[in-house]
């Protein structure tokens, strides 16, 4: 990273400064595993070609329409445009089929083969479906989505197709975000990627502070919590419901700090280089509804799904017709019916989105359950919204009161917590087992004894508690001053205050971070996707 930054800023020809990032991205990718390289190259080239092809179809049809502007009537122009649009859609289909196909095959073939095999075995079929030795290229989920988004944006004429293959290669493989996002839109990122950047001391300072914060979350909190989580997951069925409950709570902390820490490091690196990546987390555990939670958690995935799955579904003819059909019934004429006819298509679209979100997380029925749980809650929330509003009105609840907001936050966390049970268990059976144990096997004394033997010392628990408190404090400050960067606020403090905080922060990280011999380095959780 240091070498990349030095070469980047010293590169003599500013116009081609971005080539340093391209070289660094591919070196990073090859070091991570050269056998993955073929897949990212296929995605890059196919994305580039399809975007150019779509652009060419659009340009040709534009030219053709210009030529026949005078002699074609409205219907002819409409038919011609529809034909051009269909051609472009075919190209998108090719791109999506190829790239999503690669992702789907590598990620889901063995899962589907295994499930089909179980089914065939159940019905007594004489043959079985073979499984293959497959590996998942680094960052495939992220760069596949990012490149599909680019092609769709070209189709929608939001952005022009990039003629330079190397530039497309950079957009697809950009190293700070390839491991775990955030997933960027081409329109947001490209301008920054290809523009020349000068060294800026303030950006360097802020970038380093963000990296430090990310490392603190990852190395001090997430990896420490993971020690206990790993112990329980390795011997699931021998722990009490209390311990399992505690583990899921710890998982909630670990997942957030691991994922957001990693993204902070990526954003910090980009900030140093003069590039601003979108925020991917915004204090998700402060969410008051499940919708709000998903607007604060993995924001870029939510934005991508909204842009390329939700909206196309929600405004599609199928869903619009469904809405009309409900309205045409007797129920549809009632107040509730009107609401349902409006809310059902969009909430069903949400269900589909979350089904896909679940599937995106991994090839396992538990992820399907995870997605359907979240989507189902969102769907029900949307459908029952008038009832909730009416209830709060009747009970004369002040929805702005801090106690009610706290209730909403805790309620939302409980919903998220249930989702985490699916996430953390090895499979669906284990998830259901966990639910059963959490409900039926609560024993404080046994739980405390087990928690004390999870591989964390009293000092580790103290460090976790103190750091979580620090994280909560910072989050509250950030929530109160939403829109303002904490680092900019820190700049206004006296020099010695800033330096003291930074020195303490760095020493705390170096002393209490989980790294070095004797520790199992925990990969970033979202790297596996």
């Amino acid at each position: 990273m240091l070498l990349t930054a030095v070469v980047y800023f010293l590169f003599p020809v500013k116009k081609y400064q971005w080539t340093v990032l391209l070289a660094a991205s591919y070196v990073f990718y090859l070091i991570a595993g050269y056998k993955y390289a073929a897949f990212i190259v296929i995605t890059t080239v196919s994305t580039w070609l399809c975007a150019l092809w779509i652009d060419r179809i659009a340009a040709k049809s534009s030219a053709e329409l210009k030529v026949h502007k005078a002699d074609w009537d409205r219907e002819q122009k409409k038919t011609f445009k529809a034909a051009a649009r269909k051609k472009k859609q075919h190209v998108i289909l090719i791109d999506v089929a190829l790239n999503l196909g690669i992702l789907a095959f590598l990620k889901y073939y063995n899962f589907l083969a295994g499930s089909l095999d179980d089914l065939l075995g159940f019905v007594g079929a004489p043959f079985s479906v073979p499984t293959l030795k497959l590996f998942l290229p680094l960052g495939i989920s992220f760069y596949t989505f990012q490149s599909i988004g680019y092609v769709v944006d070209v189709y929608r004429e939001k952005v022009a197709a990039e003629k330079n293959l190397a530039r497309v290669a950079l957009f697809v493989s950009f190293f700070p975000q390839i491991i775990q996002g955030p997933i960027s839109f081409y329109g947001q990122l490209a301008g920054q990627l290809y523009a020349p950047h000068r060294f800026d001391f303030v950006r360097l300072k802020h970038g380093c502070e963000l990296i430090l914060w990310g490392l603190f979350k990852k190395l001090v909190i997430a990896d420490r919590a993971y020690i206990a989580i790993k112990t329980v997951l390795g011997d699931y069925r021998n722990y009490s419901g209390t311990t399992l409950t505690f583990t899921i709570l710890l998982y909630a902390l670990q997942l957030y700090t691991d994922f957001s820490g990693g993204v902070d490091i990526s954003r910090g690196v980009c900030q140093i280089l003069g590039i601003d990546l979108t925020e991917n987390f915004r204090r998700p555990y402060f969410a008051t509804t499940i919708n709000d939670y998903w607007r604060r958690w993995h924001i870029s995935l939510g934005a991508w799904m909204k842009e390329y799955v939700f909206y196309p579904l929600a405004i599609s003819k199928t869903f619009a017709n469904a809405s009309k059909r409900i309205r045409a019934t007797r129920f549809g004429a009632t107040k509730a019916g009107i609401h349902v006819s409006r809310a059902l298509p969009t909430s069903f679209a949400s269900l589909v989105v979350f089904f896909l979100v679940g599937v995106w997380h991994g090839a396992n029925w538990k992820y399907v359950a995870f997605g359907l749980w979240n989507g189902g809650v969102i769907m029900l929330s949307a459908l029952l919204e008038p009832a909730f509003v009416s209830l709060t009105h009747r009970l004369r609840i002040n929805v702005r009161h801090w106690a009610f907001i706290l209730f909403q936050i805790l309620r939302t966390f409980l919903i998220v917590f249930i989702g985490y049970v699916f996430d953390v268990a090895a499979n669906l059976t284990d998830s259901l087992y966990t639910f059963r144990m959490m409900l039926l096997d609560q024993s404080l004394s046994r739980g405390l004894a087990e928690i004390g033997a999870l591989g964390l010392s009293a000092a580790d628990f103290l460090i976790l508690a103190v750091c979580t408190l620090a994280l909560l404090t910072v989050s509250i400050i950030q929530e109160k001053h939403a829109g303002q960067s904490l680092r900019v606020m820190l700049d206004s403090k006296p020099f010695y205050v800033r330096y003291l905080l930074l020195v303490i922060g760095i020493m705390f990280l170096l002393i209490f971070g989980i790294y070095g011999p004797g520790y199992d380095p925990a990969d970033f959780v979202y790297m596996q996707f």
Partner: protein
Amino acid sequence: MKHLFLTRAAKCTAFLLTLAALLFICQSWLFSYQDHNTHRIRSFYDEPENSLDAVFIGASEVFTGYSPGYAYENYGFTSYMYAMESNQGSLYKAQLREILAHQRPQVIYVDIFGFLRSVESSLYEEARLRMFTENIPLSANKLETIFSHPYEDKLSCLFPFIKYHGDLTVARSRVAYVVKRLLAPDVPMALKGMMTHAFVYDGPGDAGSEDASAFAIAPKCEELLLDFLDFCDQEGLTNVVFVNFPRYLENEEHHSLTSCIRMVSGIVESRGYRFFDLQKDFDAIGLDVTRDFYNSHHLNVYGQRKVTDYFGRLTFDTLGVAPMPQTAENARAWTEAAACAQAFYTLADQAIQENNPIWIDELADEWLFRP
């Protein structure tokens, strides 16, 4: 603009220097593993240059079986034990290099037990590598030792902070030791690396294995010994003497250890180096198995004095070494060491009489707060 650049440069430099200083304190003091082994190795470098008549290389048999202060008091020669628990033959060459970089002893005693290992992996343990390299100054020898060792995590050997960071037990013991030193009475502390267990072992002796081949030396041991001998030849070291410290063995003649020592001594002597097997000199030393050991492989304070006497006679009479003149300051320091050796003996003897099997070394509370 220039002013802004200079201000920022100054602030950054101050910041980085502060961090570097804090890291240095953390690495070299707060998060630095300390026990009697590390203390012994580090204290070697406190000895004035070229002031030692004899240096021992070896393991626990050495630092429990020999008393430098007693040797100085009775024979006038200065000595030090460059020894640590389970010291391995794979580190002997590097340790010899360290000794030669700071001292020019008249005799270097090498305990052959470091070359008697039946399993190759026990020649390359991480713990021994760290015990040694984490406590010696940075040098080409240190770098070569770390990088030629099979242990993979080289970076944490170069920067031990990577291993010990966050280990509050290490930090606590360091702080506790400093506090104890401040609270301890102002008395001489220098044991020159001695250690003992105040206990008299009453047997049985080490019977070894019924299968004589059970303790067969790993082929690597011979390779390391030959390499060590080659190094001594290259350096023109005619003052290296190999020794075997005495043990309490049953059926000594047929003990598996005996055949291994015979093999190793054969190699050593064939290369023209002297080998003194103290196991064979029990009577000459005056050792009594019912009184002079704290376990079958280690001497207690009683045996320690007898063996030290024997080394005194060996060094003077057999090897013809005369103690080198010391500066007044050195002489004072060694007189103090002799007093410490006497106090060490008295403390151990008393503990044995009282049936109180304490461990005594320079870091022990019993030594720091002795009456």
